[in-house]
């Protein structure tokens, strides 16, 4: 995904959100007053409502009540462009404008008898002759069967009737694009996860994107999915749940990217706090949303700061992004900062994921190079000059002095070459093959060095596998760095032990004059080869030690299960 384009999208949508909310209003709303009862005259513009209350207490469900709101139209509408009235009010109601019935939303007073009707968000046209600049009165005849304590006009907007719809349309279009982008990202990373089930970060990111998509879609689908007011709490609960998921998953994701001590207990505590906030003030949805959002921000900020403090890759940029969302929160409203902030945070998460994938790719490429290098090193063993040229020189001598022995020497050499050829492209070979390689090598070295080499083994399990030529390398080192005992022998012993926790190969050299200095000096290429091979096949689950003993040398390879 093109990060720049994505960034731009979020910028544009947040700008639109800002501009759509900042047009200068054409009206001024005064305090709404209420009265229980039902009189047609209460709709009229000049009814004296001075004894009406600012709020209604103790009302029976379904009982009819009236509300009156004085509204000052600040600007007479342009000709042929009537004003419209946008309402978000709980209940079923009739709408009177200056005493004239301009619309009906459901059946006030008959809710119990009739099925639910009407929508939570409604728009009514205001007659042109009643929309001149000046004082007007909006009167609602309402009944509230489901939430009798929610007598309140939640939203009231007056604007050009067309603009009320077209503004929503534009806002909705952008927010749907915003949501769609996250849906695509979510699916993409879900597929990535399905192709690599170990990559939990991709899954978390995918779920986060999906939740943001779902949240956005749920919020901005209200314009075209009509909903009765009785269902609104369910909608809010759904929204809160989405937000709960997001609020937990984002810091959880950061925890995976920037590990810190006591991660598990801290995450559990955080999850506990979130659930508490979610449940305790369950009906106060705005409070819940703000609390969860802030909680998410604070916890994430802590984690990312710790990451930045430890110089984790990408932590600084993520920290900057988080600070930017804070700025947006202070400069704009919660709703705008929620979407803009979530967009930015998800973007930084995507960035971290890209960094992670990059380092994974590099590690993979490195491992390929490493494997090739090890393979070459194995191949080189038999053509490196010290082995090859010394062998050939000895061979020349044998051929000149004792041709029959020379032929046996050539046969041993051919066998070692053949064995190397067989194991050349393998990462693990049967232990028997490795031992054969060692024995053949000893045969060759006997012709060269005229030392009697003795091979002993103990507890070998023929079913075991081992990386190629690692014992061979130890054997080479043993031959190179030691001198024969008084009876002109050097003895090698391989001991295999295994239990539930580990397998171990102990390789002992019994010789005189083991050269401790060079043995101990900086790690030779042989030892590096052994370690690289062990890492290739066993990751970090191995240990290799090599040290002098009283009668020679001891190497130990431990492979943990």
């Amino acid at each position, binding site marked *: 995904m093109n990060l720049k384009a994505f960034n731009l999208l979020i910028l544009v949508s947040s700008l639109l959100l800002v501009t759509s909310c900042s047009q200068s209003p054409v009206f001024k709303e005064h305090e709404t007053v209420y009265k229980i009862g039902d009189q047609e005259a209460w709709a009229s513009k000049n009814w004296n409502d001075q004894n009406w209350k600012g709020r209604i207490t103790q009302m029976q469900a379904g009982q009819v009540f009236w509300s009156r709101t004085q509204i000052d139209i600040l600007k007479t509408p342009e000709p042929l462009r009537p004003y419209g009235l946008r309402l978000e009010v709980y209940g079923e109601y009739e709408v009177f404008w200056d005493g004239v019935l301009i619309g009906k939303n459901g059946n006030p007073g008959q809710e119990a008898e009739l099925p639910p009707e009407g929508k939570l968000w409604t728009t009514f046209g205001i007659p042109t002759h009643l929309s001149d600049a000046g004082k007007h009165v909006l009167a609602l005849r309402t009944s509230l069967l489901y939430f009798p304590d929610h007598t309140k006009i939640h939203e009231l907007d007056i604007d050009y009737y067309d603009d009320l719809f077209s503004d929503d349309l534009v806002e909705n279009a952008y927010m749907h694009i915003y949501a769609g982008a996250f849906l695509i990202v979510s699916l993409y990373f879900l597929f990535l996860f399905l192709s690599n089930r170990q990559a939990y970060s991709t899954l978390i990111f995918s779920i986060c994107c999906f939740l943001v998509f779902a949240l956005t879609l749920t919020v901005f689908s209200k314009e075209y999915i009509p909903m009765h007011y009785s269902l609104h709490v369910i909608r809010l609960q759904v929204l809160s749940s989405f937000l709960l998921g997001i609020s937990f998953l984002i810091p959880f994701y950061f925890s995976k990217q920037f590990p810190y001590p006591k991660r598990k207990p801290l995450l559990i505590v955080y999850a506990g706090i979130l659930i508490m906030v979610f449940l305790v003030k369950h009906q106060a949805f705005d409070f819940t949303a703000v609390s969860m959002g802030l909680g998410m921000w604070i916890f994430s900020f802590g984690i990312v700061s710790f990451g930045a403090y430890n110089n984790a890759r990408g932590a600084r940029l993520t920290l900057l992004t988080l600070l930017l969302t804070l700025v947006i929160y202070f400069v704009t409203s919660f709703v705008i900062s929620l979407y803009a902030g979530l967009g930015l945070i998800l973007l930084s998460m995507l960035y971290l994921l890209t960094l992670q994938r990059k380092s994974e790719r590099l590690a993979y490429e490195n491992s390929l190079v490493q494997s090739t290098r090890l393979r070459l090193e194995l191949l080189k063993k038999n053509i490196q000059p010290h082995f090859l*040229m010394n062998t*050939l*020189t000895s061979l020349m001598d044998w051929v000149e002095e004792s041709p029959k022995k020379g032929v046996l020497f050539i046969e041993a050499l051919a066998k070692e070459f053949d064995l190397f050829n067989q194991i050349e492209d393998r990462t693990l070979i049967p232990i028997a093959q490795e031992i054969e390689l060692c024995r053949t090598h000893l045969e060759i070295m006997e012709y060269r060095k005229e030392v009697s080499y003795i091979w002993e083994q103990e507890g070998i399990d023929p079913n075991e596998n081992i990386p190629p030529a690692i014992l061979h390398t130890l054997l080479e080192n043993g031959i190179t760095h030691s001198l024969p005992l008084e009876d002109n022998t050097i003895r090698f012993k391989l001991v295999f032990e295994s239990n539930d926790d580990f397998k171990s190969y102990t390789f002992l050299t019994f010789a005189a004059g083991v050269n401790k200095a060079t043995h101990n000096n900086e790690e030779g290429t042989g030892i590096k080869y052994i370690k690289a091979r062990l890492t290739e096949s066993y990751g970090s689950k191995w240990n290799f030690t090599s040290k002098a003993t009283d009668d020679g040398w001891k190497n130990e390879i431990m492979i943990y299960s």
Partner: protein
Amino acid sequence: MNILIVEDESRIAKRIERMTRDILGNTIQSLRHINTLQGAMESIGKGSLDLVLLDLNLNGENGFDMLKSAVSESFHTIVISAYRDQAITAFEYGVLDFVPKPFNQDRLEQALKRTITNEKTEPNETKFLAVKKRQKIQLIPIEDLIYIKGAGAYTELFLTDGSKELHDKSLEKLEQLLSPIFERIHKSYLVNMSEVKEIIVKSGSKYMAELNNGEIIPIGRTKYKEIKAKWV
């Protein structure tokens, strides 16, 4: 001739020994074989050797330190090694020859003959002269060398910075190792000809070479014609 073979491969050591005996016959006074670096260093330090046949890779150890001390001694060193890429470095240090493994008797003979015939080394790649200085070996770049003066069994190296160093090798041996720009203008002098400013003829058929630094060195009567033909 006292010869030392330093080689950790028993079969190869025997081969060298056998061939050396074949080639040099009864000119050999002693011929010994040593298979460890430490033993070799001790033997070299004792002196009285005329030739060392040296393998550079003994028991997995790098033999270049050993090579440095070998070339600082009075005897000639011939390297016998499996690593052909070490040949250039070996020659730079001033070995008489580099015999790559595997080798046959002809190749070894070619190398050993040089010790007898005083033939110059083929590539003339010698870049340093190793000098023993307070238990340490110092490598003196050839380009710092103005002339060398024979002083009995050893030689004195006169350097561009005006200093003087002692070398254990004889003038003959050094002449063998150094490039032809070093001319034996006198039985006791080996001079870098690029440092010679002019040749002065004095009365009584005395010839002198004036060097760039003003020093004057005698030219052997018998050498004069040869030098004049070659350099003037």
